[in-house]
């Protein structure tokens, strides 16, 4: 992985279940905030200038990367935001806006997309059976737990 430049804060670090990581960083050079995406292969991609746009841009990228990993079938993806990034947010943006901080947003990473009913009705018997059996097991356990609670 490319060594982060000075004045660079790590915003997010994504790690899959095989230990491959990529990170999202903020570069505060020249009184500008610049988001940097260090990819899995170690290459660096810079984007968006400006304080607010860079912070939220980095956040969006973190979310997109997370979704992409999930779509690719990775089951465990950790998202970590450094405390320094939180400090930067609080200092430069936190008091101005009412939006949640990037670290809070990162915790609420979106769940993998569920197929719609229409899509389910088009699935093959084998595919639908596997999903239905798994979903039914979970639903049954929830029902039993609910009954035990109310008993």
């Amino acid at each position: 992985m490319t060594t982060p430049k000075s004045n660079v804060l790590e915003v997010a670090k994504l790690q899959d279940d095989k230990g491959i990581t990529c990170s999202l960083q903020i570069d505060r050079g020249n009184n500008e905030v610049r988001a940097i995406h260090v990819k899995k292969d170690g290459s660096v991609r810079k984007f968006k200038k400006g304080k607010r746009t860079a912070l939220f841009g980095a956040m969006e990228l973190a979310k997109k990367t997370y979704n992409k990993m999930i779509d690719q079938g990775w089951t465990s993806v950790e998202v970590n935001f450094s405390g320094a990034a939180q400090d930067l947010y609080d200092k430069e943006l936190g008091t101005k806006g009412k939006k949640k901080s990037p670290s809070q947003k990162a915790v609420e990473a979106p769940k993998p997309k569920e197929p719609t009913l229409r899509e389910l009705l088009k699935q093959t018997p084998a595919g639908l059976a596997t999903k239905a059996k798994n979903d039914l097991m979970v639903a049954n356990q929830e029902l039993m737990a609910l009954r035990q609670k109310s008993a």
Partner: protein
Amino acid sequence: MTEMAKLCKELIPALIDGYVDMPWMKILDDALEHNDRILLVGHCGVGKTSSVEQLAARENRALRRVNLNGQTTISDLVGQWIAKDGETVWVDGILPQAMKNGHWLILDEIDFAQPEVLAVLHPVLEDCGYLVLQEKDGEIVRPERGFRVVGTANSIGADADDRGLYQGTGVMNEAFLDRWSTVVKVKWPPQEIEATILMKRVPGLPASVAALIVRVANEVRASFDKRDVFTTFSPRKCLQWADKSLRYGNLGDAAKVTILNKLADEDRKVVGGIIQRWTGESL
């Protein structure tokens, strides 16, 4: 509150939580509004009666329902003289009761009734219909405003199923059929609607399970149309299977008690094969 007002209130059906409107309900609603005589024809368990009940519930209408069969007599419908406290008194049957009080009346499974019983309905089903109580010195009963009549049948006779699915049904004659001003052939609901119904009626049921049950039902229905099986798959069966699946946590065990154990051996093999293919469960 008078006894009759109390009775009327009790006769208003309850709204079903999560009820999903069937595709034919717009026609039914329009026909009821215009005082048409409505005949709903379709397979058992497809939701004919419940659709009328739900419209009555929404409109706050008292609803009477009578199931007709081969043993239903004219007296059951129109009324009879009975001995009470040493006197003979006339007791109205369900038909004049509904007419006099402006209730909605469902005549369920009219294809099972004897022709002479159906003949009593002829004048009631006409425009400006009325009922003659022959046994009560020819008293004429005219319907109060609000009276509506809906018939349900599995077949109209002319297209009666020749597979014996509805044994005991009779062929309705042309004069009787002619009197129904709206006849709706009720079909299976579209897959997406049927799956939605399952999810609403069985809270907690995953969409994937609802989809699977509906797909199985439609495959069995297709086999029925092709005459590979002599049984069909009603939405009622789907609901029973869905409910048990959620409770058991197992599609196969639930299918046995709600579907397969009701079938003759030959049908059981075919339907069991379809269920096995879709669920992957050995049955």
